[in-house]
């Protein structure tokens, strides 16, 4: 059974059905049907938890292109299952939320089709074992994200945000593909499991580090790591359910998933450690630092997502250090970072999903997301306020919420890593906890800004589009569920830890698991008075201080003005590329057929003729020629004469008659060369062609003497003679050098094989019938094409008459 593979394709199937449901069922919101898909998938996947947490992995394969080793292999281990549960679980909640968020007036059919496309693609990413299949699904997530960001395509900002995200993530995807191909070439397999098994044999390969960097480029662009993070804030033009789902809970985690998946391959390399940890830590800082200055709630959350993704990324980087040392008690300490990363991955999806939904609720209710206009909503929207507070405090890393647990573990990991003595950590390692701590202070500040600016302070109704009110209860269900999860995970974290994260750990550290290491960690809130607790207390104290003194230090942001940002640089590069390529293209694309012909022929003369001379193929050893009778001399010479005369034909009638003479001459040649079928066909077709020309001449103007300059004419003549000479020389050269024996002997058995005596016809109708069949189709297309070219015009004219 391939139920798992089927699970990937169910959303695609749904995507195909939704347009019909949308078209024919008008009264019921399509979302109610769509929600069944993720719910069903979630229940199915949850039922697999007992198997997976036992340490098993489920593998199912459907052959796709077996001759190239490309098959759709669904591989479900703890890591995949964790992500898959997030995708289906958050997916169900987001769809429930969107049913209330999007009114029936919006084109929701398209919305849910894209969303299902995305869900299927995302499940494909996390469950594929084959790297090329993974790549296909990966790009599909980028495309569906593009479509969803541009959902309100009437708005310019939506289109631009969509384009930006597509350009950045797809370029990253392509570099990842190149990385995959390098890995595939090194390990001689496309299967990630097999690559992991063979990692020892490929790690010294010259392509190993380039492959590592290319794969990371894919992961960083997708997960919005610095400096590729610029697409994520612009992607916030998407409808809020999309932002909650794609751009915080799932799609942006694909890059992190990729890093986790390839940790067993590349982990242990210093380059990997520093690239992942360094980029992650800096992104953590940069994201939180920039989040504080945002005035749009969604932009604030976007930067906060960037920051949190950086944090998870850095934890995976720190965890990979364990692989450098091999299995020992010391290295087991570092695996704690990976465990924390996986735990925070889940936590982040819960609290950030809830926060995005809260922003959607606020936006829906009062018509703005600008914190300069918001304030005092606490009394009017108490439930929304509660959820926002839970989410924000979890984000800031405060108890009693799940963010506190993972943040504490993060601090522990950063402190642990400073004690390492490899990768130059002895000198540089101290930077990691310091940057992490500063970033956490800013995280605390923007979390506070989010709650205080929106819900506390004076209520300014005159600045709002609508007076504030709680939304329909249905819209609050999903954020409430997520908010509750934030609290539940704090009190019973080990349920996830044991059942999902521990099996995921053995997927990331397969060598450790093979030696029987216990990769699980007990999560508990109280560690005693340890450094991490003091760090948290410090975060709160300094955070509060910074929050209240905001207006004194916010001048620091002037050091990073908008016009020097990466965003502007990106726009500048893109504009320049467009301008320059237009200029260059216009230089040679003259929109004049003759010029293009000159390029083609010049290329032909230079390259073909050049190769001919360079390879010294011009030593003609002509085979024994067949004899030439006087009659044949006459035919050939008169054809040459006819051909040359066409050049001087003054009237089109002369030209076409001369062309016919050429055609009939060739028919006679065919007779002489023992080709009766050809002669017959050529004769008839020449007659029909002549009629065709004559009929078409009725509509065409008479030939005029060309007012071409002498210079152009002589260039044309030069090129023509050049082409003719090269052609003749190559044709003569070829005849003396036969690389292969002729295969015609086979066709001489046409009577036994095809039941026909006429070999040419047996080839056409039987041996190579596929060619003939396609030829007939081409002929039909030509016929239809001509018919339409003429008739479409007729229709246009009649339309004009109606207009009058």
């Amino acid at each position, binding site marked *: 059974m391939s139920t798992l593979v089927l699970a990937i394709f169910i959303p695609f199937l749904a995507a195909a059905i939704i347009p019909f449901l949308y078209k024919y069922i008008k009264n019921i919101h399509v979302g109610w049907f769509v929600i069944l898909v993720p719910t069903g998938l979630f229940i199915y996947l949850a039922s697999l938890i007992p198997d997976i947490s036992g340490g098993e992995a489920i593998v199912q394969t459907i052959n796709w292109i077996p001759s190239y080793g490309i098959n759709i292999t669904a591989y479900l281990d703890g890591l995949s299952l964790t992500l898959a549960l997030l995708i289906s679980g958050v997916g169900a909640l987001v769809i429930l939320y969107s049913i209330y968020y999007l009114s029936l007036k919006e084109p929701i059919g398209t919305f849910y089709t894209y969303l299902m496309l995305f869900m299927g693609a995302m499940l494909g990413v996390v469950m594929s074992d084959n790297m090329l299949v993974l790549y296909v699904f990966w790009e599909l997530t980028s495309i569906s994200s593009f479509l969803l960001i541009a959902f309100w395509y009437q708005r310019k900002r939506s289109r631009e945000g969509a384009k930006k995200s597509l350009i950045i993530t797809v370029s990253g995807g392509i570099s990842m593909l190149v990385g995959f191909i390098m890995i595939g070439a090194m390990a001689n397999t496309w299967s990630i499991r097999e690559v992991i098994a063979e990692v020892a044999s490929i790690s010294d390969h010259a392509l190993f580090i380039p492959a590592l960097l290319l794969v990371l480029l894919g992961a960083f662009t997708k997960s919005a790591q610095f400096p590729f993070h610029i697409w994520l804030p612009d992607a916030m033009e998407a409808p809020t359910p999309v932002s909650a789902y794609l751009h915080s809970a799932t799609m942006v985690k694909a890059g992190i998933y990729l890093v986790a998946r390839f940790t067993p391959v590349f982990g242990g390399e210093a380059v990997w450690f520093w690239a992942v940890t360094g980029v992650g830590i800096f992104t953590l800082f940069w994201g939180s630092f920039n989040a504080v200055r945002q005035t749009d709630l969604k932009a604030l959350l976007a930067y906060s997502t960037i920051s949190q993704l950086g944090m998870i990324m850095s934890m995976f980087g720190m965890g990979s250090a364990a692989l450098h040392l091999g299995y020992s008690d010391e290295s087991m300490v570092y695996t704690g970072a990976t465990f924390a990363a996986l735990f925070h991955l889940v936590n982040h999806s819960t609290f950030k999903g809830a926060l995005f939904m809260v922003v959607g609720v606020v936006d829906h209710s009062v018509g703005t997301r600008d914190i300069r206009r918001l304030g005092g909503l606490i009394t009017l929207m108490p439930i929304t306020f509660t959820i926002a507070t839970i989410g924000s405090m979890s984000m800031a890393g405060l108890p009693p919420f799940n963010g506190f647990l993972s943040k504490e573990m993060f601090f522990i990991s950063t402190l642990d890593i400073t004690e390492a003595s490899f990768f130059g950590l002895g000198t540089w390692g101290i930077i990691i906890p310091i940057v992490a701590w500063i970033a956490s202070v800013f995280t605390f500040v923007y979390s506070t800004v989010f709650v205080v600016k929106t819900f506390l302070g004076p209520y300014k109704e005159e600045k709002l589009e609508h007076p504030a009110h709680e939304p329909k209860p249905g819209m609050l269900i999903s954020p409430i569920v997520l908010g509750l999860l934030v609290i539940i995970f704090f009190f019973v974290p080990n349920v996830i830890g044991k059942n999902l994260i521990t099996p995921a750990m053995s997927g990331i550290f397969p060598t450790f698991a093979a030696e029987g290491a216990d990769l699980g960690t007990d999560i508990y809130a109280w560690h005693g008075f340890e450094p991490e607790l003091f760090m948290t207390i410090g975060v709160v104290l300094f955070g509060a201080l910074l929050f209240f003194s905001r207006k004194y230090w916010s001048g620091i942001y002037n050091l990073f003005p908008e016009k020097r940002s990466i965003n502007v640089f990106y726009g500048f590069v893109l504009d320049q590329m467009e301008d320059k390529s237009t200029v260059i293209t216009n230089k040679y694309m003259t929109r004049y057929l003759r010029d293009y012909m000159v390029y083609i022929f010049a290329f032909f003369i230079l390259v073909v003729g050049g190769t001919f001379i360079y390879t010294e193929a011009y030593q003609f050893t002509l085979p024994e020629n067949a004899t030439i009778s006087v009659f044949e001399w006459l035919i050939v010479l008169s054809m040459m004469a006819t051909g040359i005369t066409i050049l001087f034909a003054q009237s089109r009638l002369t030209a076409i008659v001369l062309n016919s003479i050429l055609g009939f001459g060739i028919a006679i040649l065919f007779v002489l060369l023992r080709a009766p079928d050809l002669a017959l066909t050529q004769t008839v077709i020449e007659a*029909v062609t002549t009629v065709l020309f004559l009929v078409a001449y009725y509509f065409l103007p008479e030939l005029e003497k060309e007012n071409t300059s002498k210079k152009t004419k002589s260039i044309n003549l030069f090129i023509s003679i050049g082409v003719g000479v090269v052609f003749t020389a190559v044709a003569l050269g070829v005849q003396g050098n036969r690389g292969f024996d002729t295969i015609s002997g086979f066709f001489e058995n046409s009577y036994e094989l095809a039941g026909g005596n006429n070999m040419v016809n047996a080839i056409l109708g039987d041996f190579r019938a596929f060619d003939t069949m396609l030829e007939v189709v081409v002929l039909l297309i030509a016929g239809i094409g001509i018919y339409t070219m003429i008739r479409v015009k007729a229709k246009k004219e009649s339309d004009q008459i109606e207009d009058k």
Partner: protein
Amino acid sequence: MKINNIILRTVAKLVFFIILTLAVYLFFAGHNSPGGGFSGGLVLASALVLLFIVYDIETIQKGLPIDFKLVAAFGAFLSVGTGFGALVFGANFLTQAFDYFDIPFFGEIELTTVTIFEAGVALAVVGVVVTILLSISEDE
């Protein structure tokens, strides 16, 4: 195009049937001697073209009310269809079969699926050639 030429018309009537016979002969002869779907179809098309030239289009279309676009489409369908027909019998796409049958009066006769395929080719050629010429000449 209106040409008033008694001799041409009379000759054309006669020649038309000669060409038509030739076309049919060529089509069936193609299996064992020169000819076949292409030549047969083209000759048939040229016979029709002759009629269209000698008489005007309206007259011929009254006497021969055939939509040549459909002829072309049917021909292409037949050619592609025989390919899929082979699939029905479990053979590879476009596999052609032939066998010999004893039929009273005619003696032993070879029947082959290539003939159907070739018929498709011939019809497509006739349909397309006539469609092209008619479309152009009917254009105002």
